[in-house]
């Protein structure tokens, strides 16, 4: 399996701001690749250069074996794009939107019904986009990006502004798209989304990639302590001090939080003391990774 996308030392400045400051990565065929980062990290700018929408100041972008810049219609017909926030023709219905976008790629209008079904909007076919809910609009936008059956799909924050239920529905949809063999590149604010969906994720901050790899491996590599919390007041303070393998203890009056690198021994001891009331065990997440690398709390 070759690399579908190859980006080398990509840079883009806007005046004083180095929006993208030396980004290098590759995406393999069939991979689900995520670019994760806070507001203004440079995710959209990176994606737009990969799509061929913006000219890089320097660096190279190859997609499907071709240069993305200058605008290359032959490449464009093989990639599907969902822009951040949706881009719709005004006052057209859902079906008309898909038909119109399809026609731009020379796709027959019959496909629009299939696409509506794929994203679960069949009953909204005749509804104008202005009257769709946020989640429905995002799904329609996805349908418009997929109408010409592209090999690579670029999605810029496809789930922002959705409620948890709608987000999970969309996740299922995205997994299906990837499972059908399409390479997917997505940007997101949400750590949990990256963890749930991506084979590999690049964490961006201030125009640079600070970490890249499979989410699970990244977290494991952090070697962060596991945090075990139980209800406050269940355990004698004297006993707490004697628990095995505890690095630090915090008690906020509601929960007693114990950090440990040897959770097996600690949990066994807690069972022995009969103090499992309100038990929660939390391993490290990408958020801990972000904190460790940047020294800042991650705020989406």
């Amino acid at each position, binding site marked *: 399996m070759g690399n579908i996308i190859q980006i080398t030392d990509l840079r883009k400045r806007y005046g004083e701001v180095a929006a993208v400051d030396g980004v290098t990565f590759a995406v393999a065929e069939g991979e689900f690749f995520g670019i994760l980062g806070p507001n203004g990290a440079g995710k959209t700018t990176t994606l737009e250069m990969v*799509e*061929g*929408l913006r000219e890089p100041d320097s660096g190279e972008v190859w997609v499907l074996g071709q240069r993305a810049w200058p*605008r290359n*219609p*032959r490449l*464009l*017909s093989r*990639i599907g*794009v969902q*822009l951040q*926030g949706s*881009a*719709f*023709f*005004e*006052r*057209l219905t859902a079906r*008309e939107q898909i*038909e*119109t*976008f*399809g*026609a*731009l*790629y*020379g796709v*027959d*209008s019959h496909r629009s019904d299939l696409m509506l079904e794929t994203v679960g909007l069949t009953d909204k076919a005749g509804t*104008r986009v202005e009257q769709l809910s946020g989640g429905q609009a995002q799904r329609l936008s996805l349908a418009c990006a997929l109408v010409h059956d592209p090999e690579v799909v670029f999605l810029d924050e496809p789930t922002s502004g959705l409620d948890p239920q709608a987000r999970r529905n969309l996740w299922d949809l995205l997994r299906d798209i990837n499972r059908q063999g399409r390479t997917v590149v997505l940007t997101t604010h949400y750590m949990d989304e990256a963890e749930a969906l991506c084979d590999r994720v690049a964490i961006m901050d201030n125009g640079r990639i600070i970490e890249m790899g499979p989410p699970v491996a990244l977290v494991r590599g952090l070697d962060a302590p596991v945090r075990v919390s139980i209800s406050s007041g269940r355990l004698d303070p004297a006993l707490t001090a004697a628990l095995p393998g505890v690095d630090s203890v915090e008690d906020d009056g509601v929960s007693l939080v114990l950090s440990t690198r040897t959770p097996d021994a600690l949990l066994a001891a807690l069972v022995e003391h009969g103090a499992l009331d309100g038990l929660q065990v939390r391993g490290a997440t990408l958020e801990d990774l972000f904190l460790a690398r940047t020294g800042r709390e991650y705020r989406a």
Partner: protein
Amino acid sequence: MTALRTLSRAMFYGFVRDRTAVFFTILFPLMFLFLFGGIFKDQSAPRPKVAEIGQVQLLDAMPAAARQQLAKALDLTQTADRASALERVRKGDLAGAVEQQGGLVTIHYSVGDQVKAATVQGVLQALVQQANVAATGAPPRFRLAGQQVEDQSLKTIQFVTPGLLGWAIATGATFGAALTLVTWRQKKILRRLRLAPVRTATVVGARVGVSMAVALIQTAIFIGIARTPYFGLQLSAWWWLSVPLVLAGTLAFLSIGLLVGAFAKTPESASAAVNLIVLPMGFLSGAFFPLDNAPGWLQAVSKVLPLRYLVDGMKNVMVRGDGPASIMAPIGLLLAFALLLSLLATRLFRWDDV
């Protein structure tokens, strides 16, 4: 479906489903047609108002037929209140007040409106002379015969229709281009189009096609309504030459819209800019009233405005009955204008807001 057809459809639906756009391109100009063509339909100078104070033998003794004839020239009312009648003359509410004592007919007038004062005096003078001749018992030596000729002057509707239609087309095409460009840029559709393998010529072609279709619809509706008996528009044999004029005019105003769209950032500012350009142009180009009596500077200004050529050309072929030769120059100028501004707009074109 081809990209061109589908994009055209998207633009056309976007237009007809936008009530505001339909109102301003079709209904609003029609309202002006009703205003100018309907209300001022039987426009002629109002008759001077004259009060008859007490008994005026000269007038009262006239036969009914003559009295009717007189009513066409003067709006006569009777009053017994001499003081108030004179006061109304002084204020200009009345053009004159007549009274008679024995053989002396006195007309009171003010020179506030000299034309009316002269009319009233002339009419009464004639009546007095007539009465004098009749009093001698001799037959009058000279007589005046009136012979009506066919009315050849342009009725209001005849010049209002081409003028307002030209203005309506100018508004529609300019708004269409400017708003499409600005909203599509703002809503990222332009960007999205750039990410599809579609040629710029296709997108522009769709816009031009839709605007031309809208302009022809405007023309059909306008001519259709003006031809109803209520307005009574008479079309000349060459009226259909207005079609190429309409198409050339659409191109010219699309180019203005493109230029506005290149500068404006929001639909609101684009609308304001278009109104600021097209509405004054309507006044300066003779779309609302003929420029024949306009001052020289206005005539000169109108010569650089594309609407002037559109309106002139349409008057020529729609109502004056001029043939193909009369639209060559207007069409040439409109196309040259379109070309020049499109080139400029292309240079200023932006895909993105920033």
